[in-house]
């Protein structure tokens, strides 16, 4: 084989080859070791490399403020993240593949649980380092819920809904009012009606209630707009968004334009994580079922769907209300993470953000929404030191994505959990492969 034919691309492919055999389990274990490493030696290492403390966002903020730190940051990221993860993943590929196969053989549930626990451990340890990380992680998880729920309407159903900030607002305020009125001593609402100790246990119920209220709000949008198809949902949902914002600005009883504070801090990382997983799980289940795929049928050919026994009105209504439900839950969590909510948050800017996340990540795709939400938030945080220029770069980036991949980065992709968790190579084959070489 002539050396001239080994181009860069094929060289990279060859380098990646051993890593392509690492199962998800291997990556998670590698990441866990990395964050553990950061916890134990992160601070002294950072100081040694010239940074004042552990870089909270992989060094982006440091680098943008002080470019001299670039070499130090690169070394840090290499030593703490890239090398440990890479090494562990590569070296443990065989046992990890065996373990992954064993878990899947036991039951899908066992495999999923193990992976989720690992994932949670990684997030927990990672965000333990600083309050900022904890906040960003939780807000990103909420963003995932928002993006995913909007994708159900804009991606799977092919509509253009602008009312998500409104649903979020309804959920945020509902949750806040119930939490505070029932469980908190508050200047405005007086003493708690129920023992505060019960609060955290009532929180799930409060969140479900918030979702329900948002769903009822969704009816106000759906009923007028579903009688006709086309762009009417866009306009009506836009009007709805303005109305909700204006409503809360004028509702003095919940603080009006000044907002409402004092929500108890029940939205801890495990709680937010659990609700996000629940959201991803239910939505993924839904869109993979025939009932859920009916959304695509309605989007791509409503007349044909009608003729194939699909109840199109019910399908649209269910999807819309379901999406609003999760937006409401996300809103409720959002309010309790910040401990404060005000109507100004749920404005056009929020709409632009959530639309950006959906379209950037990819329409009609659970993976796309997760990727979109996480990368958008990461980018938004990482570019924070650039201040105003952030809002030139991010929109430009999105425009580029729209031009070259109009439906988003990872669109129309099925989220096959089994495929994600299965061993990337049969353990026996691994033996064979080594022997053949």
């Amino acid at each position, binding site marked *: 084989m002539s050396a001239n034919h080994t181009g860069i691309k094929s060289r990279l492919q060859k380098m990646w080859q051993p890593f392509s055999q690492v199962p998800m389990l291997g990556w998670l274990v590698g990441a866990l070791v990395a964050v553990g490493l950061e916890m134990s030696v992160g601070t002294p290492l950072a100081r040694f490399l010239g940074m004042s403390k552990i870089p909270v966002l992989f060094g982006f903020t440091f680098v943008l403020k002080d470019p001299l730190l670039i070499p130090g940051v690169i070394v840090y990221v290499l030593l703490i993240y890239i090398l440990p993860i890479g090494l562990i993943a590569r070296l443990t590929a065989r046992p990890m593949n065996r373990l992954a196969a064993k878990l899947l053989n036991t039951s899908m549930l066992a495999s999923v649980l193990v992976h989720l626990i690992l994932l949670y451990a990684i997030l927990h340890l990672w965000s333990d380092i600083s309050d900022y990380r904890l906040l960003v992680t939780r807000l990103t998880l909420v963003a995932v819920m928002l993006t995913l729920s909007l994708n159900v309407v804009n991606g799977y159903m092919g509509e253009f809904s602008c009312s998500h900030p409104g649903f979020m607002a309804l959920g945020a305020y509902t949750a806040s009012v119930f939490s505070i009125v029932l469980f908190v001593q508050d200047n405005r609402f007086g003493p708690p009606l129920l023992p505060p100790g019960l609060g955290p246990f009532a929180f799930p119920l409060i969140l479900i209630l918030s979702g329900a209220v948002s769903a009822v709000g969704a009816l106000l949008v759906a009923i007028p707009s579903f009688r006709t198809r086309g762009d009417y949902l866009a306009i009506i949902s*836009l009007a709805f968004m303005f*109305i909700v914002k204006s409503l809360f600005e004028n509702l003095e009883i919940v603080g009006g334009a000044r907002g409402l504070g004092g929500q108890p801090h029940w939205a801890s990382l495990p709680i937010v994580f659990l609700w996000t997983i629940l959201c991803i799980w239910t939505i993924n289940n839904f869109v993979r079922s025939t009932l859920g795929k009916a959304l695509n049928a309605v989007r791509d050919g409503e007349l044909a769907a009608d003729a194939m026994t699909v109840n199109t009105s019910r399908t649209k209504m269910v999807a819309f209300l379901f999406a609003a439900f999760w937006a409401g839950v996300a809103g409720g969590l959002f309010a309790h993470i910040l401990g404060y909510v005000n109507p100004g948050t749920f404005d056009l800017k929020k709409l632009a953000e959530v639309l950006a996340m959906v379209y950037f990540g990819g329409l009609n795709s659970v993976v796309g929404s997760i990727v979109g939400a996480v990368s958008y938030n990461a980018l938004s945080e990482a570019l924070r030191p650039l201040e105003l220029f952030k809002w030139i770069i991010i*929109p430009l980036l999105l425009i580029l994505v*729209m031009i070259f991949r109009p439906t988003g980065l990872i669109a129309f992709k099925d989220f096959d959990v089994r495929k994600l968790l299965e061993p990337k190579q049969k353990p026996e084959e691994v033996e064979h492969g080594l022997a053949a070489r």
Partner: protein
Amino acid sequence: MTFFLQNMVNALQWGSFYALIALGYSMVYGVLMLFNFAHGDIFMVGSYIGLFVSTALLGLVGFGVINLPTPFMLGLVLVLTLFLSMCLNSFVGMAVERIGYRPLRNAPRASAAITGLMIGIILETGNLILLGAQRRKYPDELVQIGSTPIQILGVSVTPKKIAIVVVSLALMFALHQFVRRTKWGMAMRAMAYDYIVVPLMGVPINTIALLTFALGSALAAAAGVLYGIAYPVLDPYMGVRFGWKAFVAAILGGRGSILGAGLAGFLLGFIEIFVAAFFPSTLRDLIAFSIILVILTFRPHGFFGEPYSAQLRL
């Protein structure tokens, strides 16, 4: 009665801005089947262009470059400002079309809508970066023109307000004539009717698209300049405030209907002014949008639109 007439005049003025901006939305929606969410910010840019043009012109006058009696001079500056801003802003609009929308001509319309949103954000941020947070004002000399109130039918009204309404109506009429009577206007109407077939008949989509954006942006600039002399203090987010409401007005008027967009713009102006007259101003948006929502519930295609219609009608 005087109360009603007084507010009527204000409503007409306020509505003029909405109507002129709504026309841009309506035309782009009618001819190109897309929502140009950057249009509100094009209005903002037009207003700022007017600010700079007028300042420059007044500077020229101040240096004695041209010598004519003063009130006439100021009037001339104003007219030139309006004209030049419209021309310059049409280039801005065409640039937006060329850079942001043309690459997405065959993409799903939602992607184009997102692009528009992003362009709008870039325009707003660009303004903040270039001009800073300080609020800019239209030159006092121009703002003063025609601001001494006169009494008509017991109502106190400034000639400026009347002029604004008259100019707006004149521009709308000019647009109507253009679309109705010129070859390019006919081409635009044909495009609105059949997006796909028309280019096959030798009508170039790219030129029509540029033209549509140019016209819409010119009208937005007119609205911007007129707004500037009526409410001199500008800010980078004025486009957001006006733009979205004008957008809803355009939809209310009916897809691609110039007459409809104009009427709906004035209607929105009326609603806002009269609501503000009776209710606390914080309720203004709430009530205005609720009314619009109710109208759209019963007539989702707007005043002059038809369900699924694809015509730029007048």
